[in-house]
């Protein structure tokens, strides 16, 4: 039952990523060229609605609809190095592959098979972070 619930949410997410064109390499390229408002409109309006949703869930201390437990929205650990350096690495990859970790899966379903190379490399990149974690500034 729960599997079906999260599977449905995933389907909705996948459809949204494809139809919004946020999963398109072209849209990401265009975004970094500042040649269209499209991606900024998507992120901005998602944030606007997301901030209201997050605020209301916290203010009214809403419980999870699944198990009645309080909804916890954890704060990120403080610091800046890991966020800035990690973010820059992520940006390198985002600009080249045009794919972030959500849309990757959508692109696979849409039938652009070479994305499996991106997914495999991203998994390897994640593994390498685990390998180097203790030596990197955080």
């Amino acid at each position, binding site marked *: 039952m729960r599997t079906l619930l999260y599977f449905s949410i995933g389907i909705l997410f996948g459809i949204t990523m494809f139809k919004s064109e946020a999963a398109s390499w072209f849209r990401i390229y265009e975004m970094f060229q500042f040649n269209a408002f499209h991606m900024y409109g*998507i992120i901005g309006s998602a944030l606007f609605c997301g901030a209201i949703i997050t605020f209301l869930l916290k203010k009214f201390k809403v419980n999870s609809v699944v198990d009645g437990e309080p909804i916890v929205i954890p704060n990120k650990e403080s610091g800046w190095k890991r966020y800035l350096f990690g973010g820059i690495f992520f940006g390198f990859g985002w600009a080249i*592959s045009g794919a972030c970790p959500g849309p990757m899966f959508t692109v696979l379903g849409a039938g652009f098979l070479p994305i499996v190379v991106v997914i495999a490399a991203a998994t390897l990149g994640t593994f390498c972070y685990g390998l180097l974690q203790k030596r990197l500034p955080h």
Partner: protein
Amino acid sequence: MIEFLLQPWPWYFSGPMIAFVLFLLLWTGKSFGMSSNLRTLCAAMGAGKNLSFFQFDWKAQRWNLVVATGAVLGGFIAANFLSTSTAVAISPATILQLNEMGILDAGQSYMPEKLFGLNAFGSVKSIFLLSLGGFFVGFGARYAGGCTSGHAISGLSNFQLPSLIAVIGFFVGGLIVNHFILPILL
């Protein structure tokens, strides 16, 4: 309504839909963060044997793998049943620029054939670019503790300063590569 959904979705519909997905995940007691799946995959494949970063109860994260699997099906449904055309109408300036860089299907397709067509498997350059891009996405997302969904949407919606720093990083890295490296690499 159906006619509207079959067209590419405008930003003012897409953004709220993403926020709705965020809402559904929070409301069901989870969080919106897709790159965590890559860590879960590593752990599921046994990376926890030697590395403490992958020693966690990955089975508790199976719900998120289910979300990602749903996203695959969602992409299939959207591309095959919910689109009259999948050409992405990027701006004429971008089309011109990409044409000059040898991406001739800009404005006519969803993804550049050069990188995401089946012939890409036979091109050393394409495989190199896809691998390089993917590697940085995976490495950077975990180093930064999240990606576009975890930081740019979830984190900023919760007014987290670390997420703002991460998103600034995304754009610093993205702008450098887009403007100075891609023209050489493509």
